[in-house]
Every structure is written in structure tokens, then in C-alpha cells.
């Protein structure tokens, strides 16, 4: 390998982000955080690394196999690099902010690191931005989180945002008290109705009804209401119905689907959960839902910045103007105040116009006047 290659090569799943994408990403994050802040979500900033036990506690356990560990030489305890920020924010809410008034609305943005990328998502480091609503357990709280996350994407300019609402705790609720059924999870995960019917036994018809109740929200809810459910399962269904009504009336531009049996990646959710897609992308833009934060009911949403940026139009080109060597500082200041990006010449050159083109400036300043380069 050449010396350049040796220095340039990064470990798998990590990359440098260059101009103008780096500034674009920061700008998009800022706009998202402003959307969250406008509805009372206050920003917190947890550390990159913390003790493994607290990072992987409760709903954080799902991230165990994705987490980089290092030994803290000071305390001799294991520390984990965050692979997801939600458990950190939940920890802050239930410890340091335990006495803050409820419902508590927090937002966050930061980078996470994962041990291994998947084939579909090879990035090991990517940005997350999200919200957590802690200490409110109602359909209104579920809907607020869904609407805020999805609308923030619409406001950024993501076209055709789709939200898939799920009830990951519904199937475990129906199966509770029964012996574990071989092959059931696999059949449900694949949406294979015939296989669900074959292995489901006595609860097969109910589970098949749930699989068939996936699809566009309105007709799917009608099918779901025909499935005979009782007790907690019926309560979950009522909750989902209420959330669908709230979301569709507040944000009719969203494509809403429901999927009562989707459970992959939602192992720790206790109520309605959701995944956000966009028509142009095969990857999820975000996901979230209801979980338990150390005894308190909470709902949250996380957006994945890498996939969000993929579906957004690229950065808008900035207006750059070249200031020839010796331009008074105040003149540059005045142009910057008008919204120009100024690039100052650091030495006298023969042809200022050629120099401005070389430095990717569309304009230059000549004798106090702006002219095209």
C-alpha cells in the first residue's frame, strides 16, 4: 500500500464527511432540534461513554451485542461506548432529573458507535437525533411523539413520509401463559399466514387475523377490530386505534399503516411503537415507541441521521465572493451581513478574476462593487 492509502484507510463502517456534506448534516440536525424545542423538548447531552451496567440496563439491554466496551483504568469497571442514546436519556430522566416535573420532555442529538454494521447499514458510526417524553402514559403522549418526529421530517423536506404503527407487546400478551410455540416467531416475522395457522394451534386463528390486519391504517383497523381479543390485548388495540385517530387528524399528509405483529427490534417496547419510512428509501428513517424507563412509562423517537440525509435534497450552494488582497475588513463585514460567504485573498495576485474562479467564488469585489467572476 502507498503511504497515502495507509493513512487514508479508515476502519470498516467509519468515514470522513467532507464539505459541503458536513455542514449540511450539522444544519439538518440544528433544524430538527429546533422543531423539537418548539414543542417544549429541552436538550440534554449525555457523555459518549458510561458504565456498562447503566448503559445496558432495562431497554438498553437490546444494544448489548452492538456496544464497544473498554475498561476504565481508574475504577477497573467496564465502560460501554453508546450504541443508542435513548437509554442514556432515560437514565438522566430517572436519576438526575427524577424530581423534575412530569411529563418531562427531553431531546438529544449525537453520534453513536456500533461494534458491527449490517449489510444493509454498514455504518458503525452515525448520528441520532431524538425525543423522549417521560412520565405520561396515554394515547395523546404516544401520538405527540409520532407526530413530532414525522412532521419534523416533513418540515425538513422529506417527501412522502410513511409511519408504520405497531404493537410489539400484543403477541407476547396473547401468548402469555401458553407454552412457547416452535416456529411461531419466525412465521410472524415473515408474515407467513399459512405457517402461523399451521403452528399456532388454538390461538392460530387470532394470530392469523392479526397478520392479515396489517396494511393501510383505516381498512387495517377495521380488520383488527374484528379479531376477538380480550383483557390487556383488547386494551392495546384500543390504544392503537386512538393513536391512529390522533395522528391521522393532526397530520393527514402522512401515509399511515399499521402492523400488529411487527416485533423485530422492538423487544423492550410495552405499548404502541412505530417505524418511519420515506417512499424514496429502503432504509428506516427512524423508530420509536413506548417503553419502561426504570418504572416510569415513557415514549420516544429516534431519527437516524445517515438515512435522513440520504433522502433529503443536497445542500444549497452558498454565494461565495472573493475579496482581493487588501480589501478593508469593514467591506467584507458588510457583505457578510448581506449573507455573502467571503473568501479573502492572502496575497497580491496578477488576475483577481481567475483567482476567484480558482477558489470556487462566483463573484468578486472590485473597487467596492460586486461583479460576477
Amino acid at each position, binding site marked *: 500500500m502507498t503511504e497515502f492509502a495507509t493513512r487514508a484507510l479508515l476502519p470498516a463502517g467509519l468515514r470522513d464527511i467532507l464539505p459541503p456534506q458536513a455542514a449540511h448534516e450539522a444544519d439538518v440536525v440544528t433544524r430538527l432540534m429546533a422543531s423539537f424545542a418548539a414543542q417544549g423538548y429541552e436538550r440534554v447531552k449525555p457523555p459518549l461513554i458510561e458504565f456498562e451496567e447503566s448503559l445496558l440496563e432495562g431497554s438498553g439491554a437490546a444494544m448489548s451485542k452492538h456496544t464497544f466496551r473498554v475498561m476504565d483504568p481508574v475504577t477497573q469497571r467496564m465502560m460501554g461506548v453508546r450504541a443508542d442514546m435513548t437509554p442514556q436519556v432515560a437514565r438522566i430522566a430517572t436519576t438526575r432529573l427524577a424530581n423534575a416535573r412530569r411529563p418531562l420532555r427531553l431531546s438529544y442529538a449525537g453520534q453513536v458507535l456500533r461494534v458491527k454494521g449490517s*449489510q*444493509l447499514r454498514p455504518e458503525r458510526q452515525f448520528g441520532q437525533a431524538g425525543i423522549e417524553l417521560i412520565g405520561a402514559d396515554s394515547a395523546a403522549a404516544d401520538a405527540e411523539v409520532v407526530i413530532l418526529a414525522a412532521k419534523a421530517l416533513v418540515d425538513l423536506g422529506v417527501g*412522502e413520509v*410513511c409511519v*408504520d404503527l405497531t404493537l410489539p407487546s400484543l403477541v407476547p400478551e396473547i401468548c402469555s401463559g401458553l407454552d412457547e410455540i416452535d416456529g411461531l416467531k419466525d412465521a410472524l*416475522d*415473515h*408474515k*407467513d*399466514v*399459512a*405457517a402461523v395457522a399451521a403452528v399456532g394451534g388454538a390461538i392460530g386463528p387470532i394470530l392469523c387475523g392479526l397478520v392479515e390486519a396489517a*396494511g*393501510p391504517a383505516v381498512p387495517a383497523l377495521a380488520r383488527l377490530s374484528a379479531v376477538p381479543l380480550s383483557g390487556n390485548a383488547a386494551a392495546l388495540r384500543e390504544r392503537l386505534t386512538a393513536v391512529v385517530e390522533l395522528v391521522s387528524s393532526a397530520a393527514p399528509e402522512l*401515509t399511515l*399503516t399499521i*402492523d400488529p405483529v411487527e416485533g*423485530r*427490534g422492538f423487544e423492550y417496547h410495552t405499548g404502541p411503537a412505530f*417505524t418511519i*419510512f*420515506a*417512499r424514496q*428509501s*429502503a*432504509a*428506516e428513517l427512524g423508530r420509536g415507541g413506548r417503553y419502561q424507563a426504570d418504572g416510569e412509562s415513557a415514549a420516544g423517537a429516534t431519527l437516524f441521521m445517515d438515512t435522513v440525509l440520504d433522502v433529503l435534497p443536497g445542500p444549497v450552494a452558498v454565494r461565495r465572493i472573493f475579496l482581493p488582497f487588501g480589501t478593508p475588513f469593514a467591506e467584507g463585514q458588510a457583505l457578510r451581513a448581506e449573507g455573502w460567504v467571503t473568501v479573502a485573498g492572502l496575497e497580491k495576485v496578477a488576475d483577481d478574476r481567475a483567482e476567484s474562479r480558482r477558489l470556487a467564488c462566483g463573484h468578486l469585489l472590485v473597487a467596492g462593487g460586486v461583479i460576477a467572476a
Partner: protein
Amino acid sequence: MSDLQKLVLALPKGRILDEAMPLVRAAGIEPEADFDNPKSRALRFSTNHPHIDIIRVRAFDVATFVAFGAAQIGIAGNDVLMEFDYPEIYAPLDLKIGLCRLAVAEPVDLAGSDDPSRWSHIRIATKYPAITARHFARRGVQAECIKLNGAMELAPSLGLCRRIVDLVSTGSTLKANGLVEIEHIADISSRLIVNRAALKTQPDELSAWIDRFREAADAA
């Protein structure tokens, strides 16, 4: 309509294609004439539906195209689906074609004296290293897999390793190579698969196609 907005159906080359085409046609998708021309070098074919194209790729690649959303719908054996275990793929329909089984085989003379319950480490030639490693790990056996893309049956006789994991339909290939099936891993059939994001973002259209394939499979 741009190519990216089209619905793409991915079909596997080879054995399964002959069994799958009657179902595809019964579901109402008729590819252009070039599709049946064995000399054609084309990989992508238009159909009687202006917004649906068919691509013909290797069986393993069907799953990859669909998982990445490059194709929205496809037909793949559950051997391929189990090997990759992509969470982005739904397999809503068993088409009951391409029937066979995935099995462990070893030479006949070894099978007489072998006691699989005493294994701690075995070496296996297979096209399915992930399924094989998972299958043996479940029994506490470490499987060192040698990935081959075909002709697994040669491996034992040439001393590459003593055991193989491969698809078996009639068992005649095993027999011809002096091998015997010693363990059943899974029953295999071909499934209709769809991309998860596509099903969520174009639910009406994809559900309608799943239903039409279901009717076609039930009628077959």
C-alpha cells in the same frame, strides 16, 4: 416512468424458474418474449404491466436485491432466506415449489461407525455456512465451514472434508457419490418475498400482488 419508480420482480435463474413461471403468469404477469429466449443476454425484462419489470438473477442474489429494496418483490427458497436472515425481507407466502430438504451427509463407510453425539468440532463443506454453523452451535458443536458454491458432493471423496451440508431432493446425487444423509436440517420450498420498506410505503399495490400470487399458488 423512471426506472426507480418501477416495481421490480426478482426471479431466480435455473431450477426454480421453470416451476415459478406458471405461478407468475397465473398471477397475471407476462414477461416480454425475450424472457423465454435462451440466447438472450438481457438481465431485465419488461412485462405486460408498464410499471413492472422482471430481473433474472442468481437465487442468492434474489434475497439481496429484495433486502436492499432494489427489487420490491421476488421468489426465493427458504434455504437462501435462512442463510442470510435479512430482517428487511418478509416471506408472506409459501409457493410450495422447488421442494427439497437441507441435510447433513457423509460417506457411507463413515456413517456406520460415526457417533454424532460425541462431536465437538467438525469440518463441513457447504454453500450455507451460516445455517450450518447455527445448526451445529445449537447442539454444542463447533462447525468449521468451507464455503463452496457447488459440487459439494465431491468434497468428501477428495479429502477436502468428510461431511457436507447441501440440498437434497431425491438423494440420487448423494448416492452416486457414495454419500448418505445422516441428519435433516430443514424442509425447503420457495417463498414469495417482499421488501419491508416497500410493503410499508406502497401497501396497496404490494398487498394486491401478494393476494394474486396466493390465489395462483392455491389454484396450482
